[in-house]
């Protein structure tokens, strides 16, 4: 027997409306601090940079550009904690090479040397370690980079997900190349090198056991040769970004904020594969915020845009390259999407992780 009050409805009294106190500060690390969004940025700005930041760290790019003995170097490091270790289209070994190679490429540098640190969990099978190492070696050969130094640590069982990797890399920045968001000016054309959201959906499908009708393979790839093809058209590209965590939305927001220009995105021009769109529709996610591992977004001076786009489309990793928007002098620091129906919306920096919606 159910318990309900008399069916005469009491009108809602406005004075009865209440709401909770906010969560202001988090005393502990939460997953969102590693999500590539606002929480990650706050962690760096409020804790790391004041503690040990200098001129180079202040660049806050995918890689730092530093001068050493007269040479201009790009220098980058990244850690890899992906689950599962092997996924459709790649493995943690591929990511560890391509992620760092791509961070250097976003400075215009061809990666020359990598370091590689393995943090192994007690109990992980050596066969698994071997397969990851093989994949890492194959990816390094494909990218044309040498793994010059490394390190191994083992943590107790239960203190890691089998294997964590860290790679750091260096490469030379070619003369005349200066890729940084401060160079973006209104009128620059925004080009993406291909379909977005593929890697994130591929990982989610295996991690969560979700099926979206077709198997989606990660787009994990080393972008050095694509960047070289673009720079061959003009060394005067303004900025490149590798839209990994936080997806295209995070990359564009970072550029808009660092450059002080606005970005207008034509939503229907952004290449989103049907499988990614479907997966995102089911989960209530926005493809603009989903991670990529083999894509770049470029801000190109308008006079070079057509030639750069043609060069990208002639390259195997840029066949689906598309112009998706432009830098503007209105709404500085903000990214605005023109929707397919003709409306507009702000595309904000994600707070932490994107969460699947309930309905």
């Amino acid at each position, binding site marked *: *027997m*159910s*318990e*309900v*009050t*008399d*069916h005469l*409805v*009491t*009108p*809602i*009294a*406005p004075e*009865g*409306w*209440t*709401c*909770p*106190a*906010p*969560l*202001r500060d*988090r005393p*502990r*690390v*939460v*997953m*969102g601090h590693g999500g590539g969004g*606002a929480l990650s940025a706050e962690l760096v700005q409020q804790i790391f940079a004041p503690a040990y930041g200098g001129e180079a760290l202040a660049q806050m790019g995918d890689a730092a550009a530093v001068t050493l003995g007269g040479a201009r170097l790009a220098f980058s490091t990244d850690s890899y904690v992906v689950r599962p270790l092997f996924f459709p289209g790649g493995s943690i070994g591929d990511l560890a090479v391509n992620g760092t190679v791509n961070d250097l490429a976003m400075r215009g540098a061809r990666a020359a040397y990598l370091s590689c640190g393995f943090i192994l969990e007690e109990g992980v099978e050596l066969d698994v370690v071997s397969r990851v190492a093989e994949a890492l070696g194959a990816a390094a050969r494909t990218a044309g980079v040498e793994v010059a130094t490394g390190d191994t640590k083992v943590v107790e069982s239960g203190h890691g997900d089998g294997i964590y990797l860290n790679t750091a890399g260096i490469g030379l920045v070619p003369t005349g190349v200066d890729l940084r968001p401060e160079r973006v000016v209104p009128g620059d054309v925004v080009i993406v090198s291909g379909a977005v959201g593929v890697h994130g959906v591929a990982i989610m499908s295996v991690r*969560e056991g*979700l099926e979206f009708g077709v198997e989606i393979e990660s787009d994990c790839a080393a972008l050095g040769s694509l960047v070289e093809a673009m720079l061959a058209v003009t060394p005067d590209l303004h900025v490149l970004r590798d839209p990994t965590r936080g997806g295209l939305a995070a990359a564009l927001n970072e550029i808009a*904020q660092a450059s002080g220009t606005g970005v207008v995105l034509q939503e229907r021009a952004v290449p989103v594969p*049907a499988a990614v*769109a*479907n997966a995102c*529709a089911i*989960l*209530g996610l926005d493809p603009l915020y989903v991670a990529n591992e083999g894509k770049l977004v470029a801000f190109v001076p308008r006079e070079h845009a057509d030639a750069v786009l043609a060069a990208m489309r002639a390259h195997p990793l840029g066949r689906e390259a598309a112009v998706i928007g432009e830098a503007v002098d*209105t*709404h*500085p*620091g*903000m990214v*605005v999407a023109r*929707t*397919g*129906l*003709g*409306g*507009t*919306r*702000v595309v*904000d920096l994600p*707070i*932490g992780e994107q*969460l*699947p*919606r*309930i*309905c």
Partner: protein
Amino acid sequence: MKYIDEFQNPELARRLLDDIHATVTRPWALMEVCGGQTHSIIRHGIDQLLPEQVELIHGPGCPVCVTPLEVIDKALEIASRPEVIFCSFGDMLRVPGTGRDLFQVRGEGGDVRVVYSPLDALKIARQNPDREVVFFGIGFETTAPPNAMTVHQARSQGIRNFSMLVSHVRVPPAIEAIMASPDCRVQGFLAAGHVCSVMGTREYPELAERFRVPIVVTGFEPLDILEGVRRTVRQLERGEHTVDNAYARAVRPEGNPAARAMLEDVFEVTDRAWRGIGVIPASGWRLSAKYRDHDAEHRFSVDGIRTVEPAECRSGEVLQGLLKPHECEAFGTLCTPRTPLGATMVSSEGACAAYYLYRRLELPTTVAAVAGREVTPVV
């Protein structure tokens, strides 16, 4: 997925918009009840394209937003226990209870897992017989049937270490409560299509007649929403107030009888508090006595937790359409998605969050100043 692109076709949207512009002769206030519709309206910029006379009021249809603080506190308490694996849909993890959220519980060592279906939680219970697995069962009539089915399966398969913390809510009593309010400005409703796909439309004719409002069952894609608006406005202009189904590809008048039977077996109707609004009679479901063994509130003795919600935000007014999100003095300053004062700013389906995320260009510069930016409206 077939039938997604077709329902976002700009040319067809333009035709519907033209028809709405041609039909409307005076101001009308329509409420879309469902948070999914609010999200779609703002994400696609639909409200900007409608005639000025058509105002869309965002209703209390975000299940995340309306889950009471007290229930969140119970979830936090249960999830903190070492023997528990606490499973939830993703967007509940960020909703603040008293001083904490589920993300923080996880950061403090609690085993909190995001699942995509209650059946995933049941599987986890099967795989971990020495742990207590609890699923956070919230939502409207859309998420209630699979949750009911899961509890039913747990009982029939004898999976004793599975329980559910239930805070389900029902749409029609909320519509009734909104319409009964003396301040109510709503003249027509877009009813939530997915809710009606389960429950049918039987409960609506009496409401439409009693309050003399058109109620149009509406889907979620841009064309669905425009069609819902078009039919509602057409009725209003003609002085009609009937129940109309503009989402016939998913909704039958009788709904889904099998799902309804499952709901009646597993749940019983109860009064339910709605966060930011208060108690609405007969507006919720809880597990019926037959399934009490799987009720997490009883199993973990948290039914004694009572949380008084401090009156610090005006989300109740927003949830009833009496206040636009950006008309609240805390909007964008004290209250942002990063530091939500209220649940309507927490969930991406909440009206305040949707405004903050997608609409800041049109809002006072104080909003943008938070992010250290000046805002120039886009013309």
